């Protein structure tokens, strides 16, 4: 895990031995562990004259914007690295086809997600394993990857042809942009939320009319 200021072995032999030793032995390991469990991008601590800042290797957006599919066993570093790699064709939890239905059990997602508000599930939505009926009626929908403020991107205009995994905008979570990605190849039909609006996790943001993968290319 890289650090902005590296209180390396050389520095450790200069002034304030006790402080540095404490920093290295107790503070740093616990900070690193803390950073891994907290899922914040950056952690900064002042300790006397010392000032330590820890940051996630790839920035936090790659991690936070990821699907929830990774299990608790993939804790800490390995988990981050595994999911932090660029994934242009990210699968979304909601969408047509058998793959979405297969992941639904671990994600706990429903065929449709309610908008911001009291957050009730769509009661009318039948709990069929086959979510495709729902998806055919409305087309695939890009969902919010985080709770924050929605900012549509240049591709989020009705009529724009997009590819699966293409960036349609971002949800700003405390200054960290989380990409909103197209769940399938298709044509943007509607922008469901205005720019600058607060959105919750899983909220429907951009509607898409699916086209067959080959046609999109």
């Amino acid at each position: 895990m890289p650090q902005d200021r590296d209180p390396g072995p050389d520095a450790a032999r200069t002034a304030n031995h006790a402080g540095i030793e404490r920093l290295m032995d107790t503070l740093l390991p616990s900070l690193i562990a803390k950073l891994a469990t907290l899922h914040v991008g950056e952690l900064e601590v002042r300790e006397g004259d010392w000032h330590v800042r820890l940051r996630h290797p790839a920035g936090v957006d790659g991690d936070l914007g990821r699907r929830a599919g990774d299990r608790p066993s993939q804790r800490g570093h390995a988990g981050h690295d595994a999911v932090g790699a660029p994934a242009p064709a990210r699968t979304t939890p909601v969408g047509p086809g058998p793959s979405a239905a297969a992941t639904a059990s671990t994600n706990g997602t429903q065929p449709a997600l309610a908008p911001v508000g009291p957050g009730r599930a769509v009661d009318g939505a039948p709990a069929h394993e086959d979510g495709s009926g729902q998806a055919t009626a409305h087309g695939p929908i890009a969902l919010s990857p985080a709770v924050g403020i929605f900012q549509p991107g240049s591709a989020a205009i009705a009529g724009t042809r997009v590819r699966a995994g293409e960036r349609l905008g971002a949800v700003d979570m405390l200054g960290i942009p989380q990409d909103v990605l197209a769940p399938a190849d298709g044509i943007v039909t509607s922008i469901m939320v205005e720019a600058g609006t607060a959105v919750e996790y899983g909220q429907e943001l951009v509607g898409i009319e699916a086209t067959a993968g080959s046609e999109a290319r």
Partner: protein
Amino acid sequence: MFSKILIANRGEIALRILRACRTMGIDAVVAYSEADRDSLAVQLADEAICIGPPDARRSYLSVPAIISAAVVTGCDAIHPGYGFLSEDETFAEVVRAHDLTFIGPPPEVLDRFASKEGTRRLLGGFGLPTIPGSVGMIRDDEHALAEAERIGYPVLIKPSAGGGGKGMRMVRTPRELESAIKVCRSEAKSAFGDDSLYLEKWLDDTRHVEVQVAVDRYGHGVQFGERDCSVQRRHQKILEEGPTTALTPAARAELNERAIRAVVAAGYENVGTLEFLVDAEGKAYFIEINCRIQVEHAVTEMLTGMDLVAMQIRIAAGEPLGITQADVQTRGHAIEFRINAEDPAHEFRPGAGIVERYHAPGGPGIRMDSHLFPGYEVPPFYDSLLGKLVVWGPDRATAVERGRAALDELVVEGIVTNVEIHKALITSETFLEGRMTTNLLDRVGSAAFLAAAART
């Protein structure tokens, strides 16, 4: 006072906090994971916001998601409940950095009490007796062996962080110590991200007694008496009551007074609990402080008539306590039964599923804090607490009678619960005579309790 509070928790405590906010005329937003979309707290809330997927690390444990939810919904404070981020000083620090208030002790206070070993030394210095233990954290096996030798076997290996019995082992020999340290380190590491361990002298047949306190920002503190949490299973409390049957009234008064004096002197702030082990001779040893509202706070509320969650919110808002010790009068006896989705007949294996029927008992002195409703699906992702049945009576015998009737009246169908173990406990001689020790269930075995109850 705050205008709007984000409730960053789930289950019965999310409801409890929502109710406190309503009473105080404060708006509340319930932050929930996708697994809790249909939860009672979300249904009853005026406003709710989904913060992430079921995996708690990306929802209830995600600092950016929770703070972002508070910011976009216009909250000025965050109530963390218990568990999750409730005692995390880094979270409290980040909350403050976003101009929000963490409802609990301020970050520097959480930091001061973060290490159990450090807290023992701190409060020991202010007059609380502590259990003999290792000086500082265990460095390596040799250090551990030397310290254990000095303290005398048996010793208890304890993690500096966390709770809930993870990373804890009692060992009787050097050989056991060496192998247990490795297990404890890895358990503590994966549960709390911190593998520092220390040793404590193991006391046989102890009682667990804890003192509820509240201290405001201005150093004014009161105690609300003690709770007895001796009925545990593998270091997890399942039944709590107050007052304790382990101490005489004079000894209880002395313990409570010493606790509040020490914690005020040490600079604590907000509601908190000081936990003690009481040995067979009635001598109490301080073990740790809980810097949060606890599951069993309702016992104290029944005994004192006070609203501890409201008090917690007021203290965090900077208000003075507004009461003195003389205003705190405990009356009668209260017992709390934790109703968990666990199967006592099968090693308390946790269960999940749909609640087909649910009926909460009623009557004088009965309180049921639960997020259950018929048709509710208990998600498999979180802890197994389904609710707390709390009963009050003018004396212990009446509380026990009411408890027995209320447990019989309670209906939870469709999922497995631990209600049978409570029925067995409350009719057992050991409990009726008030002689429960923390090792009772683990020593006798839950199966023996159930079998004994079945015979009567």
